[in-house]
């Protein structure tokens, strides 16, 4: 078995196990840490698929920024205890059964396609690099890029307005 395939199975197992631990661990801090593990495994998948720029962006944006934001909020609320009330047992069972049937139906519907994907190789590693992606991003996709900056501005304004205390609203 070639080493790329071994790495694929290792990363797949790691990401699935981490995702299960995100859902089923009682402590929210542990959930965040397992989600970081999942993001690292997904970045490994990106590298195996010659998407090096996306792998680094995934690490920086998701594992570096978003997960730290989640950790900040959890620490702010002092929620690192295991006192979360559980849902009704029948509700949980129904949720797991419906999720499992969704999995079954999607796998049964999509199991017959014949496409294949080669492993990592340095011969065709050109499109995932920042040279190619940046060229296309700043020529063909420059308008969506600029619109996303407006989106960030509005998200920042929205977060500041939502996070403001109500008493400050009365004073001004």
């Amino acid at each position, binding site marked *: 078995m070639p080493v790329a395939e071994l790495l694929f199975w290792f990363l797949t197992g790691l990401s*699935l196990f981490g995702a299960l631990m995100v859902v089923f661990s009682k402590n929210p801090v542990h959930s965040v840490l397992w989600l970081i593990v999942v993001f690292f495994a997904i970045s490994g998948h990106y590298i195996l698929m010659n998407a090096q720029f996306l792998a680094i962006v995934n690490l920086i944006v998701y594992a570096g920024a978003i997960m730290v934001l989640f950790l900040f909020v959890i620490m702010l609320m002092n929620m690192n205890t295991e006192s979360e009330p559980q849902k009704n047992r029948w509700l949980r069972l129904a949720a797991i059964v419906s999720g499992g049937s969704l999995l079954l139906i999607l796998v049964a519907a999509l199991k017959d396609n014949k496409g294949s994907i080669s492993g990592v190789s340095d011969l065709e590693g050109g499109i995932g690099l920042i040279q190619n992606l940046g060229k296309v991003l700043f020529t063909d996709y420059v308008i969506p890029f600029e619109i996303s900056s407006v989106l960030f501005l509005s998200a920042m304004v929205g977060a500041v307005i939502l996070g403001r205390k109500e008493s400050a609203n009365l004073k001004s």
Partner: protein
Amino acid sequence: MPINYYIFLSIALFTIGIVGVLTRRNAIIIFMCIELMLNAVNVLLVAFSKMHHVAAYALDASTTVGTEAQLFVFFIMVVAAAEVTVGLAIIVMLYRNIHSVDINFLNRLKH
């Protein structure tokens, strides 16, 4: 390696995210499961991009087919970052008002 492996990995991650949204009551965990589903879709997009690039590379060695999918994943990450800031602000405001992040207390719109 068949593309089916990546499709099944993505479906499994997406389903785990859905089960997490349906079973947990903590709003932050639900939000993290939504992030998990977004990442499952990203993996699938990158896998299809690689598949098309491999198919086109056999015909033409200087092709750049598959770049658009990776840029699409990049824009999904951008939108996810904006979404997380607003969502966490909403959760913090919720916690300030009802002193809990349990979604079972969020039934005021019902009556």
